[in-house]
């Protein structure tokens, strides 16, 4: 059974925090509540899917600052901002920085649930994607340095002959490396290989120095 997405409620107002946590729990989410930004940043369970419901106005570290801090810490969780009053400049700023939504605290519960749901769906999608990438990256990491060089050249669309010439190895060896690549990456076609590598944002082991003497 997959655990229900976890909503992290960060709000300094205890009664509101409790109330909104209850409401979300009754709506089927698992909820963890934090009384301050610091508390939330310290206890990070970011690996669990879900989203953050963040109060915009908090003493010390306010919502926008928390958003910054999370970005720095590469927290993948989408953020839904809540504010006691509709503060347009700050909401614009929050949205621009990638907040999922910006709501007032007394908004209709449909809007709140909708925003949370959207954030959770996005989070799930992000996570699926990053899991795939992580897998890909780990596979790529398993390639030998030479194989990686060959891969880079393959992705650049070079022929075996050119690769052999560029890398100063025999064309036959290139073929052998390519076979290893497809086996290790479990990929059949060059097209698929190219798409995958681009998706992973992989650039190979860096510009390869030509062998000395050439």
């Amino acid at each position, binding site marked *: 059974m997959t655990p229900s997405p976890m909503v992290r409620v960060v709000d300094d107002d205890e009664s509101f925090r409790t109330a909104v946590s209850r409401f979300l729990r009754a709506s089927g989410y698992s909820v963890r509540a934090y009384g301050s930004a610091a508390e939330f940043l310290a206890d990070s369970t970011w690996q669990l899917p879900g989203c953050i419901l963040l109060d915009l106005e908090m003493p010390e570290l306010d919502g926008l600052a928390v958003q910054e801090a999370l970005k720095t810490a590469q927290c993948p969780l989408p953020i839904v901002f809540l504010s006691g009053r509709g503060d347009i400049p700050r909401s614009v700023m929050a949205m621009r920085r990638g907040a999922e939504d910006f709501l007032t605290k007394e908004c209709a*519960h449909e809007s709140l649930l909708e925003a949370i749901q959207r954030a959770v769906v996005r989070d799930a999608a992000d996570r699926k994607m990053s899991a795939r990438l992580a897998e890909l990256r780990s596979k790529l990491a398993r390639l030998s340095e030479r194989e990686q060089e060959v891969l880079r050249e393959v992705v650049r669309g070079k022929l075996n002959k050119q690769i052999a010439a560029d890398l100063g190895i025999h064309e036959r060896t290139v073929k052998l490396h390519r076979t290893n690549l497809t086996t290790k990456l479990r990929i059949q076609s060059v097209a698929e290989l190219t798409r995958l590598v681009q998706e992973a944002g992989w650039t190979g082991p860096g510009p390869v120095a030509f062998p000395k003497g050439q």
Partner: protein
Amino acid sequence: MCVSVPSSSSRRRISGAFNWCHWYVLLFTLIFLGTVRGEVTLDQRDYLVRSWQSEDGLPENSATAMVQTADGYLWFGTFNGLVRFDGIRFVVFDSVNTPELTNSSVVNLYLDRSGRLWVATLGGLVVRENFRWRPVDGLSLDSGDYVRTFAERTNGDLLLTLAKGGIWEAVEGRLRELPLPPGERGAGYLGFTDEEGRWWVAQYKYVGCWDGREWQAHPEMLASVPEKYRPLGAAPAREGGFWLFVGHELRRYFRGKSVATRHVPNGNLGSISTIFEDSLGTLWIANYDAGLTEVSPTGRVRRWAEEDGIGYKDVRFVFEDRERNLWVGTSGGGLQRLKPRRFRSYGYAHGGTARLVSSVSADSRGNVWVSTFGQGLFLWEPVKDSLDRIRPPVWATNSLHFNSVLADREGRTWLGVFEDDLICFGAGTKQHIRAREVGGQVSVLFEDSQGRVWCGAGNAVTVFEGEQTRQFRQFRLDSGSPGGVVCALTQAQDGTIWASNRRGVFRWQGDRFELVLGSDGQPLLDVVCLHGEDKETMWMGTSGRGLLRWQAGRVRTVDETVGFPVKAVSAILEDDHGFFWMPSRQGIVRAHRSALADAASGRAMKLTCQLLDTADGLPSNDCTGLHQPICANDPQGRLWFSSAKGVAVVNPGELQISQTGPPVQIESFRYVVPSGIGGRTSFVVNPPFPPQLELPPGSSEIEVHYSAPNFAAPEKLTYQVMMEGRENAWQPRGSDRLERLHTLPPGHYVFRVRAADGDGVWNEIGSRLSFVVEPHFWQTVWFGLGVGTLLISSGGLAGWTWWQRKVLRALERGHLAEERHRAELETRQLREELAHSSRVSTMGQLASALAHELSQPLSAILRNAEAAQLLMRQPSPDLKEIEEILADIRTDDQRATSVISRMRALLRKHPLELKSLSLPEVVDDVVTLTRADALRRRVRLEVEFSGKLPSVRGDRIQLQQVLLNLLLNGMDAMSDQETEARQLTVRVRTLNGGFVEVAVIDRGSGLPAEQLPRLFEPFFTTKPQGLGLGLPISRSIVEAHGGRMWAENNPGGGAAFFFTLPAESEAQTS
């Protein structure tokens, strides 16, 4: 269908078995018109009995004694409290809610001539006078003893006898114990008084009279009584003197002699609790263990047992209220009401299921003939006073289903048989007229003033003239449209015969029936009964449009718009007093002919009438019968009505209709006043009410509880209320006994309430309560004018303040002390006005932040409520969590309320109020108010209290205003600074010389040197939207408190504002 149940002797005769058919015919002939008894019995109870038990609201299933106070309430004692009863509601007084009642076992009650209510409890005696309770001192009672009897002289002196033997008199308000007469020690005496006001006591073997010094025995009163009988009961006699129940006789003694005697067979009734004589002279003997015995003035004795509805055999009292209902209290069987029946009814004790009486007719000898649909024919004869089944002649019919019966003046009886023929028998007549000869089965029978009998059947009217029923004439009712069975026949004053069917009303013009038209020239539809008033006037009852009055072609209606209580009337019967009695499915409507005429003509807006029903003794509300005649006058003037469950008779001359309507009492007045911080206090005002109640400003949720004590038909009471001062018209309130007014604008009001009893008689006087809702200061005209003036000239006023101060100084210089004092007063008032308006404007600056303060708890409430809704929808809701949610909602609500009330406190205009104050509290209040604003502006607020601070004497609101003003100024001053630098400190410390100093220190850019001296001048401001009044007002407030205010620049940057206040000890000595 066999109808005969032969008597046993008849049975022997037919057992002779020759041709049994012959015998059978002979038998029927022999018992022709004979009566059959046994199966049908008379329901002749004179009272309708209703019982109240614990489950109906009695505090305990007993009633020990009863009185009726002047305001109309009945009071009765139970072993668990004293009860006040208005016919609907029991209000219990016991030792919990009435501490003066030290014991809740109320064993006896007495209402004296001055209206005081004496309440005898086990071991105590309490008096209620003018709504106040007072224990009676000076009467020595041990815990098991109580006052057994009360007797009163015409001058108000009282005689009290105790259950354990003591005898006391209360003369001119002083209690005195009388010596004990001979008799059994430890057993109580009965106390009573005679027509001359002498005290009498009685005990088993002793009857004696107090001559002022000692007891004089009267053994002759017991002389003729066998030894085994002993005097057991006594009661005051209505005609003077007293009744003494001795042995098996009730004797009335008057002027020392026995003047009346009533014999009570099997006289030894065991222990008698009380004896009561009602307004008709009937004596009621209540027994502890043998029920109730009724002895009428004619000597008729009737025993009442549990099965008669009196609840239980342990009867404590009989009491008669002002409406002449009798009340029977029992120990263990609750309280019973015996309501005199207006109608006597004759039904069947063991009848079949089909009880419908189809028709009723009275003959000239006073016999009443009753036909039923399914139970045969019945006859009531005055001498027998019972309704007995009789057989129609054997040759005629063996049916038990009859449509209609008519007894004519010749002594003949006409009987319309269901789906069969018309029979006429009696007075030597034996006639069988075939249905087809009269046009169908009989639907109306009527005898006119000339003795002609008219029969309606189908759409034909047949008239039988003279003795020969074979000679008849027949007419058709033709309205132009087909159908319509004749349903009514009557004769107008001029002798004209009228008839009606559903299609129209017809008038007999010598040889035919002519259609009568209404005002619109159309036939009159749905007329089911007719009653002629005079030559030109005919009353018509309809089956859905009330009553019509036809007068020379003009038709007027009497229907619900004028208060006619029913839509359909089945008959109109006029009594000897001009009242119309109109049976319907809801009961019988009674109204006077002239009242109906007034209502019809529009002379009266409202018809005075009564709707009489089962509550008045009718066996059923459905009195529509089946076919005319369904009601009849007998030669004695009594009226007979058919109903679905038997026949009912009323003597219209004896009918009692109240003249004044029920008394109306306002029982309590409640209202809610806002109080303290967001609180509400409820107030209940009970009688006696002051001439005018004064309600504080803001009073709301006003509730007036009222009631009209009525006991004959409390469920039929209707009320109307009027709030003079708001609307001056009576508003109907149905049976509601509560008027709720959520809010009332300030003003003077008179609440009035009146009630009508079940007979529709209004108590026009009703009850009234005058009250005033005081205005809030802002609701007064003066305030309105003041605010206007203030807004227009606030600048001027401020200038004036400044000028005043200058003047003041000038005056000081001139040592004009008196002038100065007056000026000071004026200045202070002005300052208060100004301080208030300045506060209002300051709060405006805070509004946005306060909105946020409010939005937190409100949002929390919203989310909590939604969560609770979601939880409730789950199959097994977590009630514990829901409870927590509700608790949180409550807390948040209080939080929001406290924000509002803090704001309100500041916004309120109020006079200077000097109190001992703790400065840290004042500072905290203001810091709380501004915290949200500070958060928004990203200003850190710090508060420092150094050391032990003395209290100061001052006005909390004004000091808060000063602080608020300084804090807001400070925050404004830092708006250009970096966020980290924005810090505002409030520092409170004690100074030498008995002062406390408050400093508000900001980290702004400080004050330019040239501004420092002008800061506190009115209208000096550096802010674009500022008025320049905040600081001058603050300084004047501080100075009014005996302090000082100034500003400085901090050495480390920013500005600091200081003010000092004298510490309380200093303030007191100065």
